[in-house]
């Protein structure tokens, strides 16, 4: 029994090669689906979901089970990104500018631009760049980043319901795409897409970040929001038809289950395996409900997820 879908998820392309006005050696297209996730038998799933690994512009306070893989490079964002791509197989890089936070290191826009350039030089894959969460500072910094990397077709975030204009304008003017982040709410998600589109941003340059909530901490809300938004997209709702980015790594590494030592909770099993699986299991669930870009941290969780994607991309036509 096949469902006839009239709609399609928008195709967003990330990264521009030299011929296209950028400097990337590889580019990525996400979205384009005309069916529910991995329902190859009744529609097209033209592009595989991708895994983005996280790099920060400041040494992160990550736990040992991440630290041991990245400590040698995490004060050098370029090398950190290269390790993610060359050693751990990241499809692209998600650069989080936590260093610009006025409550933290308070680095300048010029510092942030330098880091973005460093990462662009170090790797050939497309780049996602996201601010620290402080509205004013993010607007100032992301404008500078957008200009400095004009033509690279970055994916920049985060636009939110009460702060989307500056970023949208910066993306529009410099050829980038934008992340529209909503707080686990499908109405706000749609509303934000409408607002950004009204500023003349084409639908194929917007990516939704629905704020997934962690496994065991509300991920089922995101699961259903994403399922509903995919169904909406397939029924032709253009304002829900953008590809979806899930911040799996960020959510999972906040969870107690990824951070409690085995001595404290023996019945939960080995800590590192538990943390890896907290991330990989959440990613697996998000894939089933429509994720296009998964932000992840642990190298083994990345490897497991890439294998899971390989298996799910096998044809299942009848």
């Amino acid at each position, binding site marked *: *029994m096949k469902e006839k879908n009239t709609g399609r998820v928008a195709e967003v392309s990330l990264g521009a090669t030299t011929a296209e006005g950028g400097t990337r050696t590889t580019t990525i297209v996400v979205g384009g689906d005309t069916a529910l996730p991995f329902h190859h038998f009744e529609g097209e799933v033209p592009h595989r979901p991708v895994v983005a690994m996280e790099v920060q512009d400041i040494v992160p306070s990550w736990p040992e089970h991440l630290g041991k893989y990245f400590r040698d490079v995490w004060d050098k964002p370029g090398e950190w990104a290269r390790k993610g791509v060359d050693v751990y197989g990241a499809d692209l890089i998600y650069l989080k500018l936590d260093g610009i936070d006025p409550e933290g290191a308070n680095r300048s826009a010029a510092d942030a631009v330098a880091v973005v350039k460093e990462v662009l030089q170090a790797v050939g894959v497309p780049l996602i760049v996201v601010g620290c969460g402080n509205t004013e500072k993010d607007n100032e910094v992301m404008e500078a980043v957008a200009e400095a990397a004009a033509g690279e077709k970055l994916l920049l975030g985060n636009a939110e319901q009460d702060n989307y204009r500056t970023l949208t304008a910066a993306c529009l003017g410099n050829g980038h795409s934008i992340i529209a982040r909503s707080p686990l709410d499908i109405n706000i998600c749609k509303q934000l897409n409408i607002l950004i589109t009204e500023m003349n941003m084409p639908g194929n340059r917007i990516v939704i970040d629905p704020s997934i909530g*962690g496994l065991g901490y509300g991920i089922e809300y995101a699961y259903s929001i994403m399922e509903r938004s995919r169904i909406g997209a397939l029924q032709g709702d253009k304002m829900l038809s953008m590809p979806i980015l899930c911040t799996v790594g960020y959510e999972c590494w906040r969870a107690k289950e990824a951070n409690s030592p085995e001595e404290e909770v023996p019945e939960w099993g080995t800590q590192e395996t538990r943390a890896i699986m907290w991330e*990989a299991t959440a990613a697996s669930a998000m894939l089933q409900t429509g994720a296009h870009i998964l932000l992840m941290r642990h190298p083994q969780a990345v490897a497991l997820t890439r294998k*899971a994607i390989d*298996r*799910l991309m096998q044809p299942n036509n009848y």
Partner: protein
Amino acid sequence: MALTGLEIYKQLPKKNCGECGPPTCLAFAMALAGGKASLDSCPYVSDAARAALDSAAAPPIAKVVVGSGDTVIELGDETELFRHDKKFYHETAVAFLVSDTLGEAELSDKVAEINQLAFHRVGLEYRIQMVAIKNDSGNPETFKNAVQTVASNTGLALALISENPEAISQALGPVASRKPLVSAATEANWEQMVAAVKDSGCALAVKAAGLDNLAALVEKITGAGYKQLVLDPMPDSVSRAVADFTQIRRLAIKKKFRPFGYPLIAFTQAEDPLEEVTEAAAYVAKYASVVVLKTTDRAALLPLLTLRQNIYTDPQVPIQVEEGIHEVGTPNENSPVYVTTNFSLTYYSVEGEVEGSRIPSHIISVNTDGLSVMTSYADGKFEAEKIAETMKKYGIEAKVKHRNIVIPGGVAVIKGKLEELTGWKVIVGPREASGIAAFAKSQFA
């Protein structure tokens, strides 16, 4: 597909006698369609009409029961393709595979390990359901002995995995009263398999590669009168499983295709234990009523069982955290005290931000029946009285030396009342959880 009131009306006697309660047959039909009345109330309905209406009212996916006593597991009886349309009812049962080629001591050890697989988190207990014994030896006698060993060492439900009717027959005899799941009937063995399980009424998995073959085999078995079934379309890849499980669920629910109106069983294919769990996660999301695993690694099972709980949560009932005083980091008698509601999303947003502030703290969650701050305040469930009562009930005054409490900015108006009731100094915090880190830094760092 449920019948409409008018379709039901056509089957009724149209006497308008009112003996069923509603004054007319049409009103009664409407009540039936809405699930508010039972056909039993009508004294005049014909047998033919009753049969027609009963079959239309039968659930699209049968409920199949495995196990007995304390370990009864209900499988199936699902009505939705998507959890947001209503809910998923019966959690995926998790089974662990053991081989009958293991020696008796090894087998008992393995079962003892499986028995211990329970997990506690966020005030809940996650349990596993079954031990599945596989007839790898090919020998009925060995299989029977292994099943006996497992049965005498566990209270969990059992699954007997063999395609040899003789092996099933022998092994089932002594454990039939425990109602194990038997897997599997195939095109080659189904008549003997049905004969083997018939007297006990055990659930029988039906296995055939390809949806058409599976439907045909199920029809043969139901035609022979056996209906305690579980379906295994034998997918040869995870991708195929997603497709097959979706087709089976769709045809059962949207088309009421009877041969597919039974619960699904999934066997993991990956050999690597961690890959196995990412695979199982897909089956939990995509309709498997039973998933059979090889790994018993606790660190991999905890996330899987957490996902199962998440997916099977009722989307219409807000999830709550335990009422009381929660600790973030290792707080002491000088640490800040925050108060919020017990709605899980609210609570975890606050907890996450407090954690992010890197200042160990106490958070009091007030029982607001799972409502968020503003909703519960509007509903009278987050008033000063309620907060004061919760503070007293859990003895916060014994946990800290200071007398300062932070309330959400949205309910700043209760500050005076709460101070009056408790004698504590009330500090109005930010309206949104995202403001907590900066707030904590300025107040407490």
